[in-house]
């Protein structure tokens, strides 16, 4: 039980956990930035009226959303070499996370854009505001409140999803737990420490998400 929980071993392995934490940070940051770009592009294609762009974007989003991330990771991990592409595991993982989160982000952005009423734009134009002013004062304050909190939610999901990269032997936080378990066979110490670090990241991002929800949400001015 937890009575013989061995803290000394955790301290001994702390440097390993910290490199794992740094690696998780790095993977998450790179993936979320790339996913944002992917999401914006996919969303732009999705809402454009051009059929040649629209249908591939819909197919991409729906396929990603209805298959598990692990299958996507394995698809790239085992699939890219058969195409003759030798990609390091970490890059494969980042590509998988990018595509996966990109599809979700595309849907989040689309929800944000469609939430702003067309009449608002027209009212802005009628009030004599130019394009930048319309964006600054009318569209963005409303769209951001709908978009930013779920985007932060998605980044929480992405950090947790990056744990799956441990299965294709990327050296990140969960993998460190596995390493420690296989070296010392102390699964309780290893995985509770890993869980603790993930919880720290979760609480930071959650606080940020809650704050953005309070700050950015559009209050109708009556």
């Amino acid at each position: 039980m937890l009575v013989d929980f061995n803290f000394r071993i955790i301290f001994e392995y702390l440097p390993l956990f910290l490199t794992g934490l740094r690696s998780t940070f790095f993977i998450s940051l790179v993936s979320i930035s790339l996913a944002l770009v992917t999401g914006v592009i996919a969303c732009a294609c999705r809402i454009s009226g051009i059929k040649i762009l629209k249908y591939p974007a819909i197919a991409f989003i729906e396929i990603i959303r209805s298959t598990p991330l692990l299958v996507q990771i394995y698809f790239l991990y085992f699939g890219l070499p058969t195409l003759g592409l030798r990609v390091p595991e970490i890059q494969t993982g980042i590509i998988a996370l990018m595509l996966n989160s990109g599809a979700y982000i595309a849907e989040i952005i689309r929800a944000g854009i469609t939430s702003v009423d067309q009449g608002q734009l027209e009212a802005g134009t009628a009030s004599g505001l130019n394009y930048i002013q319309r964006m600054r004062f009318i569209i963005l304050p409303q769209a951001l409140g709908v978009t930013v909190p779920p985007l932060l939610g998605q980044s929480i999901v992405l950090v947790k999803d990056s744990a799956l990269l441990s299965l294709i032997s990327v050296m990140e936080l969960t993998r460190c737990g596995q390493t420690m378990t296989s070296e010392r066979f102390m699964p309780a110490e290893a995985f509770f420490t890993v869980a603790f670090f993930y919880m720290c990241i979760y609480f930071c991002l959650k606080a940020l998400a809650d704050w953005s929800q309070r700050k950015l949400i559009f209050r109708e001015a009556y």
Partner: protein
Amino acid sequence: MMGFYFSRLVEIYPFFLKGLWMTSKIAFISLVTCTLIGVILGIFRSGNNIILKRIVGVYVAFVRGTPFVVQIFIVFFILPDWGIQLDAFSAALLAMAIMGSGFICEIVAGGIDSISKGQWEAAASSGLTLTQQLRLVIMPQAMKVILPPLVGQYVLLIKDTSVISVIGVMELTRVGWVTVVRIPEGLMVFSLVGVLYFSISYPLILLSNYLERKMAVQ
């Protein structure tokens, strides 16, 4: 070569169907248990008992704050240390129940909280007991808020069953993983796995979209 592997893949197709059956079994059992536990926890979470509320809050924070892989490892590796022996299948179900109920709890609690306090008071002053208030007045109204995200969560839970492959349960992803060793055509094998997952989760996604539209109008 492609053609050769393709015919091999067709040969072992029943193996994939077995995996699909296993995935559906795990998904079905865990969806039912998750919903039951989740609803009960959700009622506690939105209730007035501060202690219960806090305990459920900590549980939910743990479930939402840590990756599902880590939770599976905790259930599968640590419980035996504490004297609870589980085979892979029941460990998988337990991990799914823990994870899913945490997420569903939040959805249910959100739904119940969205009902105005006046409804509780009106129900209480009509002489209904607490269970009756919940069952006859609050829940029917909260259902509108709960149902669309609940179905969306079901899709996520079905997809999360793929992670169970790490502890060696022979479900769809594991079948793909075992097959790719013998048939080194990653794209083909995991496309097949993906198509099979798609066939389960896409109908649910459509249902979720439909419910969202339907509930939004009212």
